[in-house]
């Protein structure tokens, strides 16, 4: 069985077809439909500011899904996620600036470069584990960022590369609403790819590798190959997210891809909850909206004008505190909280806990 049964009594899988269905119960189908309606309606009711936030969340969720596949499922730690985003963004920027290539060339090219870099990032994983691997990805992050900065200074784009709005089917994509739908499609595609990867042979292999490499190898899983797959696939996804980021902003600068960004992505999968795709989405939502939440809170405090200069610092400090709180008190993240709430309702009126959860 590749996925757990839904938490509804009386739901059983009676045929092989049932195993492959995306939505197994009427409730989940209804919920997905309702969610889709909300997502589709959002750009028509939301203010431009909210729409921009939603777009940022969608962008972040692609990268978070990729990192979740790599770390949360395949168990390979990466602290170089921002390096891959930068690689995708810079591939797009450079191909556009130097050769004026269209959307349909630059974005796949970014994916290709990301995949190749993933191979490079992944090679150390064949020899290194855990901390050492994290450190090697950290090192590669600095190398990629250096290459980007070098390009910027050599070509005289020291403040960054400007990119014109892309053309899709002869139509210039500029309006925020159009971007929202493009990124929504991209995020849904990323979710769909991740979901299907996880219930395929690779997904099962990744989980086995994460659980125990030696046992996985003994079971006949080609550990080296599947580790590299994990790196290549997730890096390509991340680089595409970087390319979309560059096109959406219309501007690429190496300043945007600091180590802090990598840490934010790691924070997304931790705050969301390791080992869960929904967790990646929740984490992306939380981490993206967090600074705006802090800003709004500070603006609401008395003496807001005096505090305005400190927003960035407060933001950073609060982000660190929240990350520590999650690591210490809720290591399963937002998904852990959700599971507890759900169990409470499922088991009501009994106060017992589901077996296996402390």
């Amino acid at each position, binding site marked *: 069985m590749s996925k757990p049964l839904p938490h509804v009594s009386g739901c059983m899988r009676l045929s092989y077809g049932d195993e492959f269905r995306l939505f197994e119960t009427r409730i989940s189908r209804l919920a997905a439909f309702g969610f889709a309606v909300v997502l589709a309606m959002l750009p028509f009711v939301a203010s431009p500011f909210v729409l921009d936030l939603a777009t940022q969340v969608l962008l972040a969720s692609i990268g978070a899904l990729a990192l979740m596949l790599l*770390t949360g499922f395949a*168990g*390979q*730690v990466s602290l170089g996620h921002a390096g891959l985003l930068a690689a995708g963004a810079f591939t797009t920027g450079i191909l556009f600036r130097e050769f004026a290539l269209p959307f349909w060339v630059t974005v796949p090219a970014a994916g290709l470069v990301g995949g190749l870099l993933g191979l490079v990032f992944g090679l*150390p994983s064949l*020899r*290194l*584990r*855990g*901390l*050492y691997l*994290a*450190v*090697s990805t*950290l*090192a*590669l992050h*600095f*190398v990629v960022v*250096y290459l980007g*900065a*070098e390009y910027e*200074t050599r070509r005289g784009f020291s403040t960054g590369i400007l990119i014109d709005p892309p053309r899709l089917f002869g139509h210039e994509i500029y309006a925020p609403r159009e971007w929202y739908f493009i990124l929504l499609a991209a995020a849904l595609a990323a979710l769909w790819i991740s979901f299907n990867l996880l219930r395929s042979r690779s997904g099962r292999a990744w989980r086995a590798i*994460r659980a*125990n*490499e030696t046992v996985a190898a003994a079971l006949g899983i080609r550990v080296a190959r599947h580790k590299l797959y994990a790196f290549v696939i997730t890096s390509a996804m991340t680089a595409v997210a970087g390319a979309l980021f560059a096109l959406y902003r219309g501007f690429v600068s190496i300043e945007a891809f600091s*180590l*802090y960004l990598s*840490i934010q992505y*790691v*924070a997304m999968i*931790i705050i969301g909850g390791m080992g869960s795709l929904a967790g990646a989405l929740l984490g992306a939502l939380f981490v993206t909206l967090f600074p705006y939440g802090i800003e709004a809170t500070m603006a609401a405090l008395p003496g807001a004008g005096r505090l305005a200069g*400190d927003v*960035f*610092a*407060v*933001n*950073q*400090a*609060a*982000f*660190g*505190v929240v*990350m*520590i709180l999650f*690591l*210490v008190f809720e*290591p399963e993240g937002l998904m852990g909280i959700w599971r507890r709430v759900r169990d409470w309702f499922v088991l009501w009126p009994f106060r017992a806990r589901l077996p296996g959860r402390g």
Partner: protein
Amino acid sequence: MQFVVNVAVLGAIYALIACGYVLVYRVSRVLNLAHGELMMLGAYLLVATASGIGSPWAALGFAVALSLAVGVLVYLFLMRRMTGEMVLAAVLSTVALGIMIRGVVLLVWTASPQYPRAALGWDNPSLALPGGANISFFSALLIGVTAVVYAGLFVFLRHSRWGMRMRAAGQNPLLAAQRGINLHAVFALAWGLATFTGAMAGMLIALDSGLDATMVMIGLKAFPAALVGGLDSLVGALAGGLLVALVEVGVIRFVDPLLADVVPFLVLVAMLVIRPWGLFGTREELDRV
């Protein structure tokens, strides 16, 4: 000649910072990615005491004592809760701690550069060395402090009771605990010492050339030094610091100054490919995530 002096100064900086990474890793197998931030915090503590306390020596002593306390407190309030958790969780909590410290430092002392030397009323004369090289007074002092710290650590770890306890805890925590060693006290001491040595480096750099939030980068670049030498070896940290400094100064001099921030990490990648456990480190299997 100036080249040799530059390598020695940078090597001493890296070595002094790297021994903090080594101390914590050797005793508790936790990679302290907040070390750069803790070092910066130590330097800012000096800024605070320099403006608050009249006598410069009292200010310096007070800041050093505070940094020791900060390290112990970090262990007591944060890292103690992470014992027994996955290694990755512990490392990430140090990352989170680092972000928090950065925010707090920015909030309290703003982003503009600080010059504690001026506040303390000291000057930084340039000393002429034989061979036409120059070295600033505080850089020379930094080399001296590094030598003293390393000598002190060697004696401490080899001959003192607490040093022996630290080595025992690093070698086999379970057996050490069974022999009645208070592991929490040993770990707290390791964190305190690591922050103390890091803060010394931070203060000396700040006294030499001023201080702002970019100091974190120096701390991060010292990490390859620790790993190249071997994460659990003090001799390694010294050798690694010198090696990384040699390559970095050499590349700046002969290839391209822009490479300065990447070189340590390139050395790191090369080392990870050839000999992941470092020059002097012991080979070990690391836990899964």
